[in-house]
């Protein structure tokens, strides 16, 4: 069953355009000029119940805006978004009952009161029936090992402890969907591992649908079989995460530093390189050569380079999922041009 759908969804903001300096500030005061800024640009996707989806993209790509549209905090400029069969913005409160939200960078616990009081209050806010509340509370305390933290005010918790309590807080009302916005930011390795275990457990036990925005490749790799990547407001990839490594895993990079200025090195070398390899000049003394590791070994490529260029240094870049994603962020890889995988 489809639980989240976005159809041709767009969100545009008006941003004030100010010229620099005092004159600019004065001009803005008298006659403000606004520039339209498209944060989410005709986005289409749908998520099935029980799916775990990573929603990734560089900073400012439109991830948070999308999540705000899904939670009903922002009204779409055009297009449609449906969560559990309702439009979030028009039915913000009803939508809120179906979702839980965890923001890695801000807590939802009350700062100065014991955690247990925040959790109880959340049960009241969502009008959770007593027996269900007791069951959920006991389960979450048990799985997240919260017992020693319950009587501690949130401000005295470490980041890892706080994250565990925040997870409990977002799940007290047994939501169908959990949005996780950078949940593991700043957490240490062992806390991260426990966090991932917990999300897997909730997925298995409750069939929780999870949508995760994260820059942490480990989160995505372990939790989300599916990845949606957004850049400049548009979806640039939507599919299996494993597919990304399969499609781009063949590409390798050789980074060359030249001992002399050779401005035309890239064009000079492209003659002697095999057809599947391409060279790009980064500076007069630096060159990046990409090639298909299924067709050539890095040794062959380096040999071709060494015979015709004054090489000072050479390094080979690994193709981890992380580097693939980084390349996609930086725009040096594109899904559309690579269909030969």
């Amino acid at each position, binding site marked *: 069953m489809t639980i989240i759908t976005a159809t041709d969804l767009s969100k545009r*903001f008006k941003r004030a355009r100010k010229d620099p300096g005092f004159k600019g500030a004065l001009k803005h005061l008298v006659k403000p000029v606004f520039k339209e800024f498209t944060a989410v640009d005709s986005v289409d996707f749908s998520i099935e119940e029980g799916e775990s989806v990573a929603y990734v993209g560089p*900073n400012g790509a439109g*991830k*948070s805006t999308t999540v*705000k549209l899904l*939670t*009903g*905090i*922002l*009204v779409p400029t055009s297009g449609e978004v449906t969560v559990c069969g309702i439009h979030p913005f028009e039915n*913000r*409160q*009803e939508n*809120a*009952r179906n*979702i839980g*939200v965890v*923001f890695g*960078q*801000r807590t*939802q616990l*009350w*700062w*100065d*009161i014991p955690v*247990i*009081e*925040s*959790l*109880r*209050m959340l*049960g*009241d*806010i*969502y*009008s*959770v*029936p*007593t027996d269900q*509340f*007791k069951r959920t*509370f*006991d389960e979450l*305390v048990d799985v997240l090992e*919260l*017992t020693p933290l*319950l009587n501690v*005010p949130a401000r005295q918790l470490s980041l890892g402890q706080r994250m565990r309590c925040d997870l409990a807080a977002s799940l007290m009302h047994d939501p169908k969907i959990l949005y996780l*916005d950078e949940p593991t930011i700043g957490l240490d390795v062992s806390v991260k591992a426990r966090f991932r275990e917990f999300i897997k457990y909730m997925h298995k036990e409750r069939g929780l649908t999870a949508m995760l925005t994260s820059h942490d490749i480990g989160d995505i790799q372990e939790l989300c079989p599916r990845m949606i990547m957004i850049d400049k407001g548009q979806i640039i990839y939507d599919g299996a995460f494993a597919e990304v490594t399969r499609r781009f895993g063949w590409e390798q990079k050789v980074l060359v530093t030249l001992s002399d200025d050779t401005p035309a090195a890239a064009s000079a070398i492209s003659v002697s390189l095999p057809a599947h390899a391409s060279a790009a000049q980064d500076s007069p003394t630096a060159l990046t050569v990409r090639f298909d590791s299924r067709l050539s070994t890095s040794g062959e490529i380096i040999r071709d380079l060494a015979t015709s260029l004054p090489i000072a240094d050479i390094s080979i870049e690994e193709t981890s999922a992380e580097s693939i994603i980084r390349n996609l962020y930086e725009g040096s890889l594109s899904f559309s041009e690579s269909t030969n995988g």
Partner: protein
Amino acid sequence: MAEQIRLEARPKYVSIALTSFQQAITYRITTLTNIALTFIWVFIIYYLWKAAFNEKQMIQGFTWDDMRTYVVLAYGINALIGWRISSNMMQTIRTGEILRDLTRPLNYCGSQLSIATGWAIVEGIISLILTIIVGMVFIGIQTPASVSAGLLFVLAVVLGFFTKALIVFSVSLLTFWTLNGVGISWSREAVINILSGTIIPLTMLPGWLQAVANVAPMRGIVNTPILLYLGKVEGWEAAKLLGLSAAWLVAMIFFANWAWQTAFNRVEIQGG
């Protein structure tokens, strides 16, 4: 132990108010200090009026006994909604913390009023104690004119409290546009202090301002409760004043929710 959790459910806004109450208790020293500082003003104003009443027995219908009671009560009631309630509201908007409330099945205005109520229980108790100590021991204020005057006073204070909370809430929404609340807060306090009768009773304002203040919503915050307490208005007049307070409260509920809807629709939420 996990078993210690309260099992019986509470209505959501009651639960928020009680949690806010608990939070306010953790700040009791700060709260006490803030309110105590307010009472320095009581002494300053007290001596000013004392000087004025040296010349006259009666000023605009107020005797010296009435006046010193007025001064103490006015500050006591006004302290029910202190700076912290407004700075809390503004801060949630400025920092984007408001997201926390918006992803919940809550009316934002309702949850802010609940939080304000929790604070006011603590500030109210401290304020009441100080009013009694300062008022009874040092200044010698009067008791309510009658039992019914006392009861009407309590009712009027409750109406006035929510009216002020809604005014503070509506004005705080301007933070969505300005992102800075200091100037807004100062202006709001100044207007409320004058039009509510906190600084001087409304009958002593210049004619045109009096005409405005007599029908403005701020009157219900301070002036109406104290007039009832002193027995200056009774019967039909008292009913009319309470009716005005109640009508403004209802109007403010609609206005605050409309203002919230407008602000919410137009402005982006800060932060990622």
